């Protein structure tokens, strides 16, 4: 009985909307909910994080040349809009601007993934596994910081 309830709960977790409907207003709120509530979007964000070499500076979240992303410290705020602007406009001392290099959808997917690294999005949406070896637990097992 319980397992059936769990199964039903997982039904829409990873519903894949390959063609996302246009947001109804210009505010970023719909973007945030669209991507942060969909496991596929967050998983795509995790893919872009490697593909576009975020790992080059931020490593797999622990930081290196760039600041760590899996802790509770945020230089420019942890709100989705701030992270989006960090990615698109860049920040002083090294963070490059990705505007024009990635699409807005890809940027919002990255935002959702970056927030999942410190447990800021729902556990049932955050990625549950790594593609390679990793020294840290997967994003869905991290405590909110």
């Amino acid at each position, binding site marked *: 009985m319980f397992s059936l309830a769990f199964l039903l709960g997982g039904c829409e977790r990873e519903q*894949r909307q*390959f*063609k996302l409907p246009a947001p109804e207003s210009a505010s970023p709120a719909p973007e945030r909910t669209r991507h942060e509530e969909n496991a596929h979007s967050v998983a*795509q964000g995790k*893919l872009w994080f490697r*593909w*576009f070499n975020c790992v080059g500076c931020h490593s797999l979240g622990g930081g290196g040349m760039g600041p760590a992303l899996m802790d509770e410290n945020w230089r420019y705020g942890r709100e989705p809009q701030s992270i989006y602007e960090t990615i698109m406009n860049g920040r002083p001392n090294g963070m490059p601007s990705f505007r*024009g*290099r*990635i*699409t807005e*959808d*890809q940027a919002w997917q990255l935002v959702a993934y970056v927030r999942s690294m410190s447990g800021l999005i729902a556990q049932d949406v955050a990625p549950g596994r790594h*593609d390679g070896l990793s020294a840290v637990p997967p994003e869905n097992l991290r405590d909110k910081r």
Partner: protein
Amino acid sequence: MRVQNMFSVAGPQAERIAELWWITFAICLVVFAAVLVATGLALWKGRKGTGSGHGAHLAVASAVGVSTVLLLFLIVASVATDRALAQIDASDALKIEVVGNRWWWDIRYQDPDPSRRFTTANEIAIPVGRAVELTLRANDVIHSFWVPALHGKKDLIPGRTATLTLRADKPGTYRGQCAEFCGVQHAKMALFVYALPAQEYEAWAEQQRRPAPPPADGPQQLGHDLFVKGTCAMCHAIQGTPANGRRAPDLTHFASRKTIGAGTVPNDPQQLAVWISDPHAVKPGVNMPAHAFLKREELAALVAYLGSLK
């Protein structure tokens, strides 16, 4: 677009596999017919109530004997075929690395001289009559390389390297397909093998080794600039330009390829425009993002530039 058919063989290995298939089929057909006849006889005898225990023992014993002999024969035939498949002279083999990705094939021609290596996608040209050694790897999930006219299946497993040596003896185009379910677009992960006479192959390879031609006119120049400075270059490479992404198919000689999206649609300007602006309408789930935000003339310029990459 040719269909796949493992019975229209084009190489020595596919020929042996087809032979084994026919042997197995013939034996199974005879056994199936014999079982049907025996069942019919038993039913007919049983109806009259004349069956005796002694006859049944004999029938079971002979059936077990015949089955054992036939199964042993099939094992021997299978092992013999396996051995024959491995015995191919690969001393002067052409070496190609094939990397499976969701959902396309990265094709990297190897050469001891690095300047002679080149990369293409989803289409493999090979010389007729010369062995080809394929090194198979996977980037994300398990795929399987299967060109039925040339050889059997071989899995591509992430973190492992497999090799498959094959030879085409007849010139022609042979379709292949990913044969291990790898996600939502597994069915649209095709590849094409072009078996060409040796000289034609050399000419093709020489052409592929060249960097992309420079843009010839205004729209092509605009397309080139958009490609290099925009989102395209984040994943795609065009040799001879600063675009050097390694996550998506190499587009250096894109216009010489016959399909878009690993055999999904024919490579023509209309399909290309649709693919760039909304790839998920054609192949839902691909990692290529939609570019609906491009202006009309920008899209036309990109299509013109990519169309010039012969």
